[in-house]
């Protein structure tokens, strides 16, 4: 029983690796599907913006409110903007954005491609002279890889604004003082690694959603399972990639 589970896990890991290899082999060869890439970027980016913004705002606000009492206890209330900005930009905003996108976009891609697969739409596309892998998979993976970093940067900004409001609920921090402290604290080595890791988060969300949907079977039940496992696996991958990113940043002494 345990051996079968291990074998299935290894088989799936191998299949995902092959799927990723196929992406690199096919995505950068003509014919390029620019129109579909833009359409997907619009769906992935623009349509996820409100959800990401609201979540980031709440996270910024909550983290600030909850951190304040501890800092007050040590008489370090003035450090609040510094501490909050580092936590938000380095970790919370990118990871929250990726998790929101894994839930919203990963499940959407898994379900859409899954239902296209079981209703033979992917075969119909191939018969219509279109490489479905290029048209459906390559465009979606590129769209998530390119738009999730933009969403994460926007989430940084919105969560920092939430932090400003949070700091002013019980205390008084002026607009100028807050942002001066934030920008004094944040270094190139805080922002760049956190943006770079979001490209990997985006890629993982796209590739897992597409893999699960593209290999969906067993009818409508399979579609549900594809959408569900797309979210589970891509969320888990986001955390694993985050862990790896921290280790690499640490080794490179960027912290």
């Amino acid at each position, binding site marked *: 029983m345990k051996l079968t589970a291990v074998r299935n896990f290894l088989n799936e890991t191998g299949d995902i690796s092959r799927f990723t290899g196929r992406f690199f082999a096919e995505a950068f060869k003509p014919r390029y599907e620019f129109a579909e890439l833009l359409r997907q970027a619009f769906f992935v980016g623009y349509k996820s913006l409100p959800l990401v913004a609201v979540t980031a705002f709440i996270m910024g606000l909550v983290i600030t409110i909850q951190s304040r009492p501890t800092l007050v206890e040590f008489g370090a209330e003035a450090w609040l903007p510094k501490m909050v900005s580092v936590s938000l930009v380095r970790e919370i905003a990118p990871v929250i954005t990726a998790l929101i996108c894994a839930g919203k976009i990963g499940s959407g891609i898994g379900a859409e491609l899954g*239902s*296209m697969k079981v209703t*033979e*739409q992917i*075969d*119909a596309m*191939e*018969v*219509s*002279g279109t490489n479905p892998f290029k048209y459906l998979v390559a465009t979606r993976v590129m769209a998530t890889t390119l738009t999730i970093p933009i969403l994460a940067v926007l989430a940084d900004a919105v969560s920092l604004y939430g932090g400003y409001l949070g700091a002013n609920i019980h205390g008084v921090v002026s607009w100028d003082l807050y942002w001066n402290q934030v920008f004094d604290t944040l270094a190139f080595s805080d922002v760049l690694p956190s943006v770079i890791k979001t490209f990997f988060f985006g890629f993982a969300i796209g590739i897992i959603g597409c893999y699960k949907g593209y290999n969906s079977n067993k009818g409508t039940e399979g579609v549900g399972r594809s959408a569900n496992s797309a979210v589970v696996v891509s969320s888990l991958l986001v955390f694993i990639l985050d862990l790896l990113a921290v280790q690499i940043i640490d080794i490179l002494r960027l912290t």
Partner: protein
Amino acid sequence: MIPQTNIAPEMDTVLSAPVIQLKNVSKSFGKNHVLKDFNLDLNKGENVVVLGKSGSGKSVLIKCIIGLIKPDSGTISVLGKNIPELNHTELDKIRAKVGFLFQSNALYDSMTVRQNLEFPLRRHRAKMTKSEIDNLIIEALTNVGLAHTVDMQPSELSGGMKKRIALARTLILKPEIILYDEPTTGLDPITGKEISNLMCELAKKYNTSSIIISHDLNCVKIVANRIVMLIDGKCYAQGNFESLKNSTDKQVQQFFQ
């Protein structure tokens, strides 16, 4: 040993060299041998129905013909080209001449009827102007009697309408050959008959040759010039509707009772 009940086809159409020729095609999935040295010829202007039980490999057969599934062995010649040996570009050129009507219609849910019909045109005829594309779309929709649905979403259409739109999408490239995968399955008898008549009408209008996978005897009776019975992965018997209906072979009789 499977009894061979080969009955000569009765054809009204004047025949020339086969447009599709399958020789010793075999395909298996694990231990399930779906096709075993299967042979079939489709002549120009002919409508051949492949009849067989569910899971007997009929859909696999036509997916092998269009190159969606690769056979384990054998040759599949479509318009003179051996499909398993073709690369993607060559396969796309052949696919522009071969229409495929899917069992589930396979209309793109996220696109309107217009965009569904535009899709193969933009892929295969990239140099066409907007007005030429619009004219072809209207012509294809008029042929199936659904010109008014051009800006509707597939989810707004009934089962019969979806089938007609899928047929219009198949016909828009004016293919020489059409492969139908259970065209009347899931439709009521009246709509099924309408679709069968439409298939005959359009075959005459565009001079197409067809392979039709079907269980529906009413459809088979209307469209078939010749029926091929696929049993145990082989061509068990062939002939026209009447000759197979009057066959004394038990396996053949099962389908016509």
